[in-house]
Structures are given as C-alpha cells and as structure tokens.
C-alpha cells in the first residue's frame, strides 16, 4: 500500500509460453475465488442480505411486537425522520464527533507510530501497551471511564491539581463536557489501532531515501514533511477514511458514559443510538430500518467525497 518503487525481491516476470501463462492465470482465478468464497458468503449472509432486507423494511411500518398488519408506507418513514429534529441533532453530534476525533486521533496515532518506530529499548513492550486499549471491549472500558470521569473521579483530581481547581468539568452530565468526554475515551481507544497501521507504513518507507535526505542536509522536520509523510500517504488516507466511518457508528460510548444515554439534553445522541432506540425502544422497526439506510447513504457519500479529495498514489 505504500509507494515503494521497485521491490528488490520481485524480479521482472520470466517470459513464459503463452498457453502455460493463461492456464496459470485461470488456476489463479480458481484459487482466488476459493479464497474469496468463505468471506464473500459470510458478507452476503450477514451484511448484504440484512441490508437489502432493511431497504425493504424501511418502506413498511413493521412494528416489533404488534398484532396489527404490516403495511407498505412508501417513503413515509423517510419523511418522518427528516422532519424529526432529534435526527438532525444526532447527525450534528456525529459530525462534531468526527470533526474532533479524526484529526486528533490521526495526529496522535502518527506521533505514537513515529515514537515506537525509533530504535529504543523495550519498544515492543511500548507498542503493546499502546495497542492494549484497542483489544479492550469498549463497553467494559467505558464503564471504567465512567468511574474515572465522575465529578470526584481520578480525571478531575488530576485536572484540578494541575489547574488549581479551575477546570473540573462535570464530564458525564454537563451539556458542554459530555461530548468531549466521549471524544477523549474514543481517542484513547482508537489511536492504538491506527498507530499499528501507520507503523507498518513507516517501516515500508525505504531507508535509502532517509540516507539521501541526511546526505543532502535535510532537517528532521524536512525529512518528516517530505519523505515520511509522502511515504505513508496511502496509509494516512486509509486511516482517515476508516476513522470517519467508525466515527459515524459511535454507539457504545454514548450509551454507557453520559447520563442519560444520549447525553444530557441530547448532547451525545448519535444516529446509531437513534436507530436502536427507534427500533427496540419504540419498536418501530420500519423507521429504524430507514435510519439504517440513511446512515449507509451518508457514510457512503462521505467516503466517496474523501476518495475524490485524496487520491491514493498508485
């Protein structure tokens, strides 16, 4: 995925007789579909299938537990959602979250990756520690964070000591601090994952480029700016895209952290939460399906936009 010039290990293909080549490619194709089959099957069964079902359901008024007959309602669910102020609050919160998390988390992950890429002792241990939050179940972590973020919790005692009591926000119940709390916890959890991707990319940047740069007398910043960043460009694009997608499916944190779920006065209500509450709380599966479809369209549009803005280098 990185822009590596010519890989020393890959020699130019040997000229082979045409027929053998084609047969080779055909068996390659068979092998490829063999490898694809399990994943494709599961994706079809658990992602594509349910999604098509969601599109169909979104045009009905199916209720979860109800003796009333289900009816086609056309685009009524979509009309109702678009007219619902809470849905727009949810979208706004998702966008706010994405705008905060994507740059902060990417920069932090990049900084961490650069740090653990240096030849220091025990770097494997450090890498593992940075990666630990990723393998922690978010819900479990959020429960712990909930304790840390109480008004008298550990976070506030540290903050209070540093700022002499000037900054001790009520993280979980204040309309202004609830979203930052969710952002904080999300970055803590997500940065390690991106660090690993960026680290892999960093290791793929050819060292002769660095050698050339140092011979040319480039400063460290210049090296970073003109060799490291272009070298890991594709990985960065990947990370930004994935983080944006993940930012939109924000759910666990907003359920567990603030009071009530959805946040003080809807400060952390998100589309996912809206969908689950509509479908399971209010039992309107039809409308929840419509939210799912809208969610898909929004994420697809944003991803397409990003693809258009940042072209990956070949």
């Amino acid at each position, binding site marked *: 995925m990185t822009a590596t010039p010519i890989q020393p290990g890959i020699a130019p293909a040997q000229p082979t007789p045409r027929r053998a080549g084609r047969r080779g490619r055909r068996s390659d194709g068979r092998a490829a579909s063999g490898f694809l089959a399990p994943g494709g099957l599961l994706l079809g069964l658990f*992602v594509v299938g*349910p999604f098509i*079902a969601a599109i169909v359901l979104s045009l009905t008024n199916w209720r979860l537990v109800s003796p009333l007959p*289900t*009816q086609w309602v056309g685009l009524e669910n979509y009309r109702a959602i678009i007219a619902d102020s809470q849905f727009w609050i949810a979208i706004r919160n998702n966008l706010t979250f994405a705008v905060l998390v994507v740059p902060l988390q990417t920069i932090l992950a990049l900084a961490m990756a650069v740090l653990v890429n240096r030849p220091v002792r025990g770097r494997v241990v450090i890498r593992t520690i940075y990666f630990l939050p990723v393998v922690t179940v978010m819900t479990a972590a959020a429960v712990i964070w*909930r304790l840390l973020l109480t008004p008298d919790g550990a976070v506030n005692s540290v903050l209070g000591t540093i700022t002499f009591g000037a900054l001790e926000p009520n993280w979980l119940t204040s309309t202004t601090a609830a979203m930052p709390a969710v952002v904080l916890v999300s970055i803590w959890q997500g940065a390690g994952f991106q660090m690993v991707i960026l680290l892999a990319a960093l290791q793929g940047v050819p060292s002769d480029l660095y050698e050339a740069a140092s011979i040319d007398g480039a400063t460290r910043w210049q090296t970073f700016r003109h060799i490291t960043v272009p070298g890991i460009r594709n990985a960065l694009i990947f990370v930004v895209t994935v983080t944006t997608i993940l930012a939109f499916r924000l759910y666990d944190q907003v359920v567990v952290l603030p009071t009530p779920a*959805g946040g003080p006065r809807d400060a952390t209500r998100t589309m996912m939460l809206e969908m*689950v509450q509509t479908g399971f709380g209010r039992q309107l599966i039809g409308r929840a399906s419509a939210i799912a479809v809208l969610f898909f369209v929004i994420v697809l549009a944003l991803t397409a936009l990003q693809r258009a803005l940042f072209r990956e280098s070949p």
Partner: protein
Amino acid sequence: MKTTTRIGALMTAIAITAAGCGSDSAPSAEEPAADPTPTTEQAGPDTTDDDESVAAEDVTADGSTTGDAAACDGEIDEPVTVTAWNHAGQGNEQDLMTEQIADFNAGPGAELGVTVAVEFLPDGTYVETVQSAAATGDLPDALDFDGPFLYNYAWADNLIPIDSCVPDDVERNLLPSILAQGTYDGELYSVGTFESGLGIYASRSVLEENDIRIPTSPRDAWSAQEFDEILRTLQAAGFEHPLDIKWYYGGGATAEWYTYGFSPVIQSAGADLIDRSDYRSADGIVNSPEAVAALELFQQWAEDGLIDLESTDDLPFQEGTVPLSWVGHWLYGPYEEALGDDLVVVPLPDFGEGSVTGQGSWNWGISSTAEEPDAVWAFYEFLLSDEQQLRWSSTIGAPPATQSAAASSELFGPGGDLEIYIDQLSTSSVARPQTPAYPAITESFGAAFANILLGADVQSELDRVADEIEQDLVANDFYPATN
C-alpha cells in the same frame, strides 16, 4: 519481514473494519429514551394490507397462533417439560430461582409429571431477546418479564389470558396490586411472584438529631414543603448533598428507573403519565400545571445541590455521608446490614394529593405457544405458595405477592420493618399505565426527568413527553383491541 508486517497490519485493519461494518446493520440490544418523531400514518394505500414483506409474514403467522392457543382445563394429560425463560436478576435472585425450580421439579412437579427447564438470560438484553423471540414466534412456554412490557405482549397475543388457570382462592389471595398489574383489557395475563415499592431510607439518629419528624404511614408522609425544609436543614447540618435518588441507575441501559421512581412525584401532585380513562391521550395530563410545579420543585432541589448527582454506587448512604436515600425495596438488605437498627423507611413525600409509590415488578405469563398451560400454571402456583413466597421475600427483600404470605412475613407483616410497603401497596400505590404504549411512555418520561434534573425547562420537556406519547399512539392506531 517488512512486507509481512505491512500485510499483516492491513489484513487486521480490513478484518476489523469488516467486522465493524457488520455490526452497523445489526443493532445491539439497547434501551429506551426520548425522541420526538412525526407519526407514521398509513401513508401508503390501505389496500396493500397483507403485503409480501418478511415482516408481514411474521406478524400474520404470529397473530394466527392466537386462535388455537390452549387454555387451562385443569388437567395435565401427560408428563411435560415446560420451557422457561427467566431474567438473571440481581444479587442472589438467580441462585434462589434455580433452587426453587429444582425443588419444584423434585416435589410437586414430579407428582404432576411436570419438569421445568429454565434458561437464564442476561438482564441487560432480556427485553430485546424476548421481543425478538416474540416477533418470530420463538417464545418458551413460561417466561417472566418486567412490568413495562406486559401490555405489549398481551396486546400482540404473545400471551394467553390465564383467568382459566388461576383457582379462585389463589386469585383472592393475591395482593390487589398484583392483579392490577396483570390485567389488560379486562383479562388477567400474568402474575407477579413478588411486589415492589418505593420509600425513603433514612438514618433514624440523623433525623432525630435534627428534630425531624419520622412519618410511619403514607397518610402522614412529609409534605413537599416539609421535605424541602428537611433537605435544607440536613444540608446546613453538614451533609453536602443530603438526598440520594439513585441517579446512577439511569446512566446505562434504561430510563425505567426514572419513570418508576419519579412518576409518583407527579402522581402525588395530581397528575399522571397518561389519561387512564381511555389511554388515548397524555396532553394536559403529563404536562399539566400540577406536574410542572412538582417537577420544578424537584429541579430546584437539584439546582441547590440538595440531590446527590455524583455517586456511582450505594456507598454514600451506607457510609453515612448521605442521610436520605429515595429507592425501592431492593436495597433493604444492604442498607440494613450497614445501618442495622438505625435504618428507617418512610413514605415518599406528598406533593399535594397524598404520598404515592410505584408498584409492580417482574411477572410471569404463559406464552401463546405453550401446549399445556396447566403445567405452566402448576409451576407458578408453587411459586405463589406461602413457603416459597416467604423464602423469596426474606432472601431478596421484595414484598410478597400474596396476602397470606405478607401477613406471616417477619419483615412485611404487622410490626415488621417493611410493613409500610404492604400498607402502601394496599392504599397509595399506583400501577403502571395498563397500555402497550408504556415502553414509549417510560422512554420519553425517563429522559425528560433526567433532562429536568440537569436544568432543562420543565414545561417544554413535559410537552415533549406528551407529544411523543401521542405519536406512539397514532403510530399504533391507538392500540385497538384485536380479538
């Protein structure tokens, strides 16, 4: 080496992303809260009634099971195994239920040829599990469910009426509140095997030191003004936030605590969650001036720091830093252990029309797919026997469901520490509204209550609740009778 690291990382990335995307379309189990959405009227042509969508099939298949659902005939024809679902419960509830079922299977069950095979399902996702199973017709013969959802299941014909199963003497022995909770549309659908109730737990010595009157029955409960002064007195006496309201219960999965625990505030003021005469409107009821005034007072207490909005467990009351705790019967055990004889339970304050408490808890019904309701009922009757009732109430601390058990209980009987709960249940408790709209009501009111405590405008929050309840009613054609 470098290449492999890179590929490995990529594969991980793709795997995690794929897994992530997958979970997008599969909502995990969750909760109610508030949100106003315009109504789903039948915008589509009404003629497309039974469409060919997956949903329609399920619903129709479900509805059609009602016609041939069995009723009790008083006989168990052959040995049967009753499948049962039970919520895992808190503390030792699951252990006790396991023992009770083993005792039933070894005793009366063995005589009747009935074996109960129970499956415990986690609390947090119980409602969603049951709802999904109900939607696909996969319910077990016997199941328990929390009060809020009973009317939904009854309306959807997932449960059968059990009037034919309950012998008269057993029915007469049930607390009126149990019958009230189990009744929908004139028929009995479920029985609770224990009751519930609210009270303010207090430290007797702290109240006495501060010359605070200790009420002994709901008739002489503190008035709201009196309670206001009490809170201020205690704050002045050095308790930073004198009233614990279990604020932390509401943070995670459910808003039901806020509705169960604090709808008595507006009910005591003369308002209610919905118009109970026909269950077709909440406007002018839940957002009436009385409800607004009562909750504005509550909001004032929160604003003045009289309410503890910081605790994340029960320790402050147990350790004596918070002298009053507004909570249900379930904390009697831990509180009694911490405070001993100093613990006193008083009724909730009177906001104008008399002290009110909630009632109702988990209750058992018989699903419409059960083939031998008599066998299921035999199990329920066992749970309602005095012996099992006392065993449950003394271990769990919940008020018994039958009058005979209540009378002979050490805790809940005459002179017992918790006699007040039985007193309240027979005089001043209010059942949850008996409508399938209750899940929407609790979701909406619970969130509004939280917002109000956090400073939101009371009138506009309650207007929103009324509006959301209205929307739910309209979206379900006002829950017409389906039989």
